């Protein structure tokens, strides 16, 4: 499952879609909007994507994860639009027979998403807007 959406997502729904009779573990990574960063409060986070290329990149990352790890399925859902502190931004979910592979794959997938997908974030703080341009920090 690959989605770029404006509305919030349901972790429970994703969890149900990723499981089958052989599933022993589902590992989730949930990224949320920080209320403070670099000494400033964050009033809002604007998330922008170049949707066509971002979806293609997310599909590639999912397919590479399925080849690289002993896992059953991968879901990546990324929100765009204007988000408030503590709202969900991104969900990565990985199902597998065992937790070890699921943990490793989930960590690898979110690192790849942050490094590869043309999705950008602009923080609105009391001092003004600023793009988050730094190298990604796992």
């Amino acid at each position, binding site marked *: 499952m690959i989605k770029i959406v404006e509305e919030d997502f349901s972790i429970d729904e994703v969890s149900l879609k990723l499981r089958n009779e052989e599933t022993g573990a589902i590992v989730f990574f949930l990224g949320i909007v920080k209320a403070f960063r670099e000494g400033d409060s964050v009033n809002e986070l604007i998330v922008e994507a*170049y949707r066509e290329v971002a979806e293609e990149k997310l599909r590639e990352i999912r397919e590479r994860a399925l080849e690289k790890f002993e896992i059953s399925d991968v879901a990546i859902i990324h929100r765009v639009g204007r988000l408030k502190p503590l709202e969900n931004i991104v969900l990565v979910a990985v199902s597998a027979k065992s937790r070890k592979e699921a943990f490793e794959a989930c960590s690898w997938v979110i690192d790849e998403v*942050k490094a590869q997908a043309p999705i950008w*974030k602009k923080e609105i703080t009391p001092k003004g807007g600023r793009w988050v*341009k730094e190298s990604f920090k796992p």
Partner: protein
Amino acid sequence: MRIEIKYYAWLREKIGAKELLEVEDGSTLNKVVEKLMEKHDCLRSESFLVAVNGRLTNPYTTLKEGDAVSLFPPAGGG
């Protein structure tokens, strides 16, 4: 021929959301990007990727009338 150029994220804030560019028939993507870098100083100091009609494309691709070229920053990370 006329090519539509679109910009994303901080490139859009510096240059604008889109513009139409007149180029010679048979121009390659590379040539169009060179022309844009001559036109917009900020593109010489920014890293960016280029797509044609929503797909990452070989720089030597020949463009045709009505193609949409998108310039966008690499992934934001964060």
